[in-house]
């Protein structure tokens, strides 16, 4: 049964012209009958970035989780089990206070996170979303487990071909690892003479306070449109 599902997933992947991660995400969404999918890498307790998303909404789901540190993927990874929210607009128990509003506004009605793991090795999580509320059927759930498994193996296989110390080109190119955010963190650390960790906190706080995304704030910093002064604030962009 599981073997048959696996065969079906692999057959779909093989049909793709190029075995790039983008295709991997498309197959994850197609096989499970969802509106979109994304694959997020995580380490320690936090998201590191996304290797693929199928559309703008799934990209937003990943970005929100990266910024806010909460959401279905983060929970699936931390709790090491599937996390299912069949009705995000009217959840039975409210969770993901910051994540939910913007996700619902973008049209997400049901969202599911599945851990990405090979044996005891945990890589990240797969997120699946749908623009209609409703639970996964047993078949969809079983398919999601298989695609998450295949995706985890695929990520490691891709990375196996990378030169030492480098991220595999296939993973790096299609992914979003928020490099601009890290550049901005380096700049703000220099502006405020604080560590990069603290600089990142200041960037997040500014984004939250001004209802901007972290990436938007980071671009402003890198483009030198926004400067963090040592006195108070980040509210004073340079003219």
């Amino acid at each position, binding site marked *: 049964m599981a073997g048959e599902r696996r065969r079906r997933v692999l057959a779909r992947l093989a049909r793709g012209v190029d075995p790039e991660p983008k295709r991997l995400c498309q197959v994850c969404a197609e096989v499970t009958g969802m509106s979109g999918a994304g694959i997020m890498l995580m380490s320690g307790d936090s998201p590191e970035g996304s290797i693929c998303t199928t559309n703008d909404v799934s990209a937003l789901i990943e970005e929100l989780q990266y910024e806010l540190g909460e959401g279905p993927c983060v929970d699936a990874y931390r709790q090491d089990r599937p996390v299912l929210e069949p009705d995000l607009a009217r959840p039975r128990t409210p969770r993901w206070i910051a994540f939910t509003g913007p996700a619902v506004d973008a049209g997400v009605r049901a969202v599911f996170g599945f851990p990405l793991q090979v044996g005891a090795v945990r890589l990240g999580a797969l997120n699946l979303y749908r623009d209609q509320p409703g639970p996964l059927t047993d078949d969809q759930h079983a398919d999601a487990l298989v695609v998450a498994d295949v995706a985890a193996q695929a990520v490691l296989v891709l990375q196996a071909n990378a030169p030492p110390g480098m991220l595999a080109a296939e993973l790096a190119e299609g992914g979003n690892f928020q490099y601009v955010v890290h550049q901005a963190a*380096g*700049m703000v650390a220099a502006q405020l003479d604080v560590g990069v960790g603290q600089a990142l906190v200041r960037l997040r706080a500014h984004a939250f306070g001004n209802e901007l995304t972290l990436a938007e704030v980071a671009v402003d910093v890198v483009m030198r449109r926004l400067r963090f002064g040592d006195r108070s604030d980040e509210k004073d962009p340079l003219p």
Partner: protein
Amino acid sequence: MASMAREALFARTLVELADTLVADFDVVELLTLLTDRCVDVLDVGAAGLMLVAPEGDLRVMASSSDAMRVLELYELQAQEGPCLDCYRTGVPVVNQNLADVNGRWPRFAPEALAAGFSSVHALPMRLRGTIIGALNLFNVEPGVMRPADIDAAQALADVATIAVLQHRAALEAQVLNEQLHHALNSRIVIEQAKGMVAEREGLDMEQAFAALRGHARNHNLRLADVARDIISGALPSSSLDRNLGTRRS
């Protein structure tokens, strides 16, 4: 002969081993558990397990007793015995009466007899075409192993095979995953250092990157290490080699 009890014990052993396989398991611990259970379930005096090392030679991985361990080591040293025959041919070696092996193992047989064993068996650990080792079973009492017990022993050897292969795959996955996160982390540190150098030295990101890379090359350092030193303050951005990063006007 309490065959019902033995069967139940055998079934419980398989479940116990399968349970151990699920989580993050220690392969030597699991194989030792397996040799201990062979003694309980199969009515043999001792059990041992040898695996082929990456270099191609067999190694003793687990033994139910010290006497067994010594004998297995001796078998490897003498390069003869049931385990080696089984590994080389891929065929089970069963019911070999040590008093009656007719010069098959001129060095091993007398040692095993002296250690108190009377008959020996070895079953291959095999997956498709590959033989990865063998399970050795030694009897103290003379007599033959029944076909049902040989089947049960082969089932336990099969579980051991799966455990070892799964462990190897898991190790490989672990190494790859560490490489993946290490590579990501290096990249993040480099981006942070670019930002810091850009801000302090009035450079754009490309120029900052060129300055970091130029410094790494000139000093034969890794880029990620230079970046870490910039972040920690160990290397002031003003001391980066400036010949490669041209200052923005």
